[in-house]
């Protein structure tokens, strides 16, 4: 009985040993596709964005291979040596399954797959820097500014609705360093100190759905901006003429001019913020500012004709980095009308 068992076992082992080369040969050509690497750029495309696809292999000669590209089972590009292709991403939530197949003249074959999950992401930000009412430009980050950022994210699972912010995990980074105190599930907005003088901050946010089905990353660069002092005529009829700053030398034939200084991007709540110190000088004579309107200066020339060199030094007791200096020249008795209309006074 034992001898019988030994004979059967030997026969099986012999049969297996003889059959092994045949089986191995069959696996090389049919069962083991060569490894291909499929690369997408960008990896997390926005809806409608063109995605560049490329395929590489260290085990196949792709330049001699017939390559076929397909999306969701439908071929959309193909040819010998066609190692690159592109496709337009669908809308948010419309996943696209990509497959690339290659076969060379020696009978080797390979394939790779990837998925496109379109998502949208952007960082919106604002600062608490001062700009006057009706100003349509951005309030940039002046000294001592605070920045508030919001990560706009549009994620959706394949065929499903948008993923709510509460189901997204946000990871905020400032200049590459994670800020854990403002990161976490549902934390789509965060506040940061503004950039240090003469520097720029890069705010980055990485967002990922709780189920890890989709993720994205976005960055915003916020440069530090020196507060800018601009001087405007404060007209008795029309108010502050924000639309034309006084630039360089300006002539006027008026006997009195009222001008208002605007410190763009200063870290103040209003122009008569008690922390601000306005130091006006006209022709090197210090002028005590009006306590209620320190930003405004009225120059009465009477019979005087000639230049009035206006200088304003603005400092902020609450902001040691803020020190703005502005210089302008009004020429009383100058060429008529230039102050108000000459294009040359508004810079080039």
């Amino acid at each position, binding site marked *: 009985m034992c001898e019988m068992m030994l004979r059967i076992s030997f026969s099986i082992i012999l049969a297996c040993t003889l059959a092994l080369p045949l089986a191995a040969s069959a696996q090389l050509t049919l069962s083991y596709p060569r490894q291909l690497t499929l690369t997408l750029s960008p990896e997390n495309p926005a809806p409608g964005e063109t995605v560049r696809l490329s395929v590489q292999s260290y085990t196949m000669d792709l330049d001699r291979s017939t390559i076929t590209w397909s999306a969701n089972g439908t071929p959309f590009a193909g040819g010998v040596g066609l190692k690159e292709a592109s496709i337009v991403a669908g809308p948010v939530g419309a996943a696209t399954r990509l497959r690339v197949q290659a076969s060379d003249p020696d009978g080797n074959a390979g394939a790779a797959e990837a998925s496109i999950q379109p998502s949208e992401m952007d960082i919106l930000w604002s600062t608490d820097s001062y700009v006057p009412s009706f100003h349509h430009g951005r309030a940039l980050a002046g000294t001592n500014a605070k920045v508030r950022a*919001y990560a706009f994210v549009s994620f959706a699972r394949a065929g499903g609705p948008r993923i709510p912010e509460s189901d997204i995990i946000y990871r905020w980074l400032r200049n590459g360093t994670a800020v854990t105190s403002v990161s976490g599930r549902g934390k789509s907005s965060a506040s940061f100190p503004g950039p240090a003088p003469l520097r720029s901050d890069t705010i980055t946010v990485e967002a990922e759905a709780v189920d890890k089905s989709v993720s994205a990353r976005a960055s915003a660069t916020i440069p530090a901006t020196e507060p800018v002092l601009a001087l405007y005529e404060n007209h*008795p*009829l*029309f108010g502050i003429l924000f639309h*034309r700053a006084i630039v360089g030398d300006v002539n006027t034939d*008026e006997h009195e001019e009222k001008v208002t200084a605007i410190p763009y991007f200063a870290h103040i709540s*209003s122009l008569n913020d008690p922390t601000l110190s306005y130091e006006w000088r006209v022709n090197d004579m210090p002028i005590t500012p009006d306590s209620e309107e320190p930003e405004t200066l009225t120059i009465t020339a009477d019979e005087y004709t000639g230049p009035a060199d206006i200088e304003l030094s603005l400092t902020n007791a609450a902001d040691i980095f803020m020190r703005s200096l502005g210089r302008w020249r009004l020429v009383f008795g100058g060429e008529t*009308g230039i102050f108000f209309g000459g294009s040359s006074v508004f810079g080039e």
Partner: protein
Amino acid sequence: MNHERLFKYIGIAAIVFLLFGITGWYWYIKGETAALGAADRARGFSIGIPSFLGSRGSNSANSGATPSGSATVQEGAGGAASGSSAFLRFLGIGEAPMRLPGAGTPEESASTSAPTRKTPRFWRVSLAPVAGASFTAGSSTRLRYIERGTGYVFDVNPESGEAVRLTNTLTPKVYEAFAGAGDVILERILEEGRSVTLAGKISTTTEDGLAQLQNANLGGEIGEIAVRADSEDILTLTETAGGTNLVRSRWSGAGAERIITVPAGDFRVLWPAANRIVLVEKAASGIAGSAFTATAALTPLVTDVLGLTILPNPADGPILFSSDDGARVRLFVRAAGASDAELPITTIAEKCVWGSATVAYCAVPQQIPGAGFLTKWYRGEVHTEDVWYTVDAGAAKADKLFTIDSAQAIDVESPAIDPGGSYITFQNARDKSLWMLRIAE
């Protein structure tokens, strides 16, 4: 004897004190008079009452090209006697309407007993600074504008150039103004450095042909406003601790409905079509910005473009957007399903207006004044001299439409087109004067 000397000294001292008192009183009164005078001037008390010609009070002093021979202005009209006479002279107040080089005088139609006048192709509607203007929606096209110095509302017939003043409610120093449907007017002023929005309707009852503007104060919380000529509703942006609120309400603020709150961002609001609202981040040279269609959620329109300004299409066609990377300004057209195409003109989308689904008109600076243009332009530190171009968005082409006389030096802002697509109105950012261009020659 001692008493006599004592009385003398007391008398002399009393006289001296009296003299000092009188002198002090004199200087005090002088100072107060100056302060009151300044306040009065600020309120416009020293400004002469404009002279109105015609039964409805056409303010020819403010109108650049007036028909029916009303080109003469009464002596002193428009307040040229104020302390800022040079400025007012520059603005043209108190002077005969300015005739433009090349623009000529209004043309008379031939062989009619009562000649009808036609405006020049390009003309200055208002010499005085204007706070806002838009074409009215309805059967007959009218350009409605609001004066900056007075808050008075005017209607102008773009064909004849006839200007009619509608209101007599004085609101000095109006920085921004909007005209909506149903005679809705919004005027924005500054009070103690903060903006205040006054909303009202032009009264249906008139006195001497002029109506009151019954204003309601919408408060000082509003940052940005959008108004459409075909709606009595308004869109506002207000800042709270929770972020920026986009709110739609009736013109009076009633029926306010919050559309969306965005936790952070510095936005302007655009209302290109009745059913489409666009939020765009305020622009600065070299700073990336994005624009979104706003409903209960945001849908990206254009994202991550340096110095982004955008002109959405009312007809849901392609959009124009521009970039200012700090050194260079570029204008692009984006159409659905196509790659962005750069247009061969250098301007910002804010200087453009759509004429149809695929045709836009853009004011193009002959030269961009240096680096950081957009940021400086918003601060009023630089200005441009523009030429009008027609943009074919489908073909990404641009052809010159109209060259403004170099003597005018017009820096176009806030362009708008009439519902018929025949006229473009805009302000000159140099002086806030109001202009009109007929598109067809």
